[in-house]
């Protein structure tokens, strides 16, 4: 009796949350896939017809935006790695008692809605605004120079919004590095650089990978940055999906694009997860 209860406990614990996820995540995802193979429109209804042409048509039309999204997401992620690593390193190794304070400061921006943060950037970067106005007055930049509506603004916005998601996992990984190992490397006549490259960096890689996961996926599928900071040449696939779903209301196309995006990103993630072991990534993601 006791052992039966013990054996049933995990199932009982998992049931409510698992059921919620099953009904509101798994099923909608399947319905998304189903919709992507339907034909029709709002007026005449939708019928399931294995409409693979939804995929071929939408991908051939919007291929440039797809590639651009992966490009912007990739560049933003790479920038995040470069910018975050030194910070994470410093806090992990030299932060001392103030570690939590620094981490807290890095996370501070998240207490403001990211829509508001992005709009504040738009305001700050406007053609004659707080940044460019004085620069133009002092003749440091030409009068028709603009940052908004360029890919630089969009990638900058993406990097800004997702930087803390890169700092945290790298910090977690670096913090776990046993300083005894580093000391051992010094004892074996490694210079600081060598010690870093050969000991610390490889040990921190799971954190970097976790950070890549948490950056690349949302950055590639973002549309707020592109819409607020970007111009007509910076449209990302997220904007297209949004337009198709909410303005044009062409659900088959919108769902086909979403499904393709999801499959592309999930495949990449599972490849990473397999390589590392899901647990490490999930733990790092917990931070």
């Amino acid at each position, binding site marked *: 009796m006791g052992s039966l209860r013990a054996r049933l406990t995990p199932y009982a614990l998992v049931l409510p949350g698992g059921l919620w996820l*099953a009904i509101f995540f*798994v*099923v909608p995802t*399947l*319905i998304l896939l*189903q919709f992507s193979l*339907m034909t*029709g*429109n*709002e*007026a*005449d*209804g*939708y*019928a*399931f017809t294995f409409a693979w042409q939804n995929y071929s048509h939408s991908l051939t*039309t919007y291929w*440039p*935006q797809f590639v*651009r999204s992966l490009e912007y997401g990739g560049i933003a992620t790479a920038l995040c790695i470069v910018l975050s690593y030194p910070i994470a390193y410093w806090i992990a190794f030299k932060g001392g008692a103030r*570690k*939590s304070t620094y*981490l807290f400061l890095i996370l501070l921006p998240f207490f403001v809605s990211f829509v508001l943060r992005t709009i504040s950037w738009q305001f700050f970067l*406007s*053609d*004659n*605004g707080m940044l460019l106005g004085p620069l133009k007055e002092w003749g440091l930049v030409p009068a*028709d120079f*603009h940052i*908004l*509506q360029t890919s630089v603004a969009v990638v900058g916005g993406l990097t800004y919004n997702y930087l803390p998601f890169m700092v945290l996992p790298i910090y*977690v990984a670096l*913090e*776990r590095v046993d300083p005894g190992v580093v000391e051992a490397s010094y004892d074996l006549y490694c210079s600081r650089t060598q010690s870093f490259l050969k000991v610390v960096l490889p040990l921190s890689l799971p954190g970097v990978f976790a950070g890549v996961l948490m950056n690349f996926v949302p950055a590639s599928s973002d549309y707020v940055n592109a819409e607020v900071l970007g*111009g*007509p*040449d*910076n*449209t990302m696939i997220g*904007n*297209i999906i949004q*337009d198709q779903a*909410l*303005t*044009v*209301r*062409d659900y088959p196309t919108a769902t086909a694009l979403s499904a393709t995006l999801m499959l592309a990103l999930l495949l990449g993630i599972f490849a990473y997860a397999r390589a590392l*072991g*899901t*647990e490490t990534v999930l*733990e790092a993601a917990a*931070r």
Partner: protein
Amino acid sequence: MSMDQRIDPALLRDPALLRGLTQRRYDRRDIMRMFGVGAGLGAAGLALAACGVKGAKQAPATQDDVAKFWTGKAKNGHLDFATWALYMPTDHAPLTAFTKETGVTVNYQEVIQDDPSWYGKIQPQLAADKSIGYDLMVVTNGVELEKLIQFGYLAPLDHSKLPNFAQNADPIYRNEPFDKGNVYTIPYTSGYTGIAYNPTYVKEPITKIAQLWDPKYAGKIGMMKDPQELGNFGMLLLGINPETSTQPDWTKAAAKLRAQKPLVRAYVQQDYTKSLANGDLWICMGWSGDIFQENASNGSNLKFVVPEEGGNIWTDNMTIPKTATNPVDALMMMDYFYRPEVAAQLTEFINYVTPVPATKDIIAKDAAAATGDDKKTLEAVLTSPLVYPTQADLAKLKHYATLKTADAQKAYQDTFLPISTG
């Protein structure tokens, strides 16, 4: 977030725990099982929707439908009114007067930003026959209004209760192509799309759509993102009448618009007056009343012009959703706006075209009685072709392309939307 995430090394040496942690040998089976469960759930989901999702199209309303809708409905004493920004004097004077006279309280909300997102917000409720929280809403003619009518989401109006409309409305609004005979809509205001520009940066007079293609303004040109507005301008530039246009016309216009793309800084929706005022844009497609208001409220000196090749004319219409809880009160409000003195009050603030010609005399009287700045503003309103267009002006203005079927709507949007989305 706690710092003590260290795993005890002693625990890590436990092989059972290690196995449990890695779980690799369960992966394949569990994935299969997940797919099994998922397929089961998916089958359920598919069964739900296997027959597809029903279409929303309905048959057009008849006189019987009108009677059927309005029998048994009475005044409730309250009204929820959804509309666009700056469509009511700031002190809400017409609404207060209305409440005083009829006892109907009005909850006035300027919640509509653009038609597609408004339609997107209310459609699920309407499709499920639920109230959208509003009894009266102002919708522009276009694809969304077309859908609202075709899918039977609007209440057919009872014209016996709209005497002021019958008496005071300008005849041109009684037979608009999108709602002949005003079965579902009566206009609130009308407006034009033309070219707005900032004379601080633009040193020559702007008179033609072709000037939006002028390389001199490269990087400072704004065009509207809305496919109906954008497409119309492309067609007008080529001398095509949008109201009778077909797919070949759309393709030609789209090609011309694509050629313009390298010069365009942004495809705007509502925020172009801000960009014009602060110099991010110098010349842009714009709406007549917006520029008037921008100059009046912010002291900018932007200019607006209806181009020689033509401009777009559109109507913002009052409609009653079919699930309104207070339709009779809504109807009363609609008729109230057609009293000339009330319409005059609205026009003096909104500065868009009024559907009530009799307002002209009233505003003239107000202007004669006013002094100073007020007098100047009122006289400007009187003489403005943006508020009281002449026949010559009206001849230049064209409605949006007529898109009655879902296929036509999709084809049109697929032609013009990609231009603004790179």
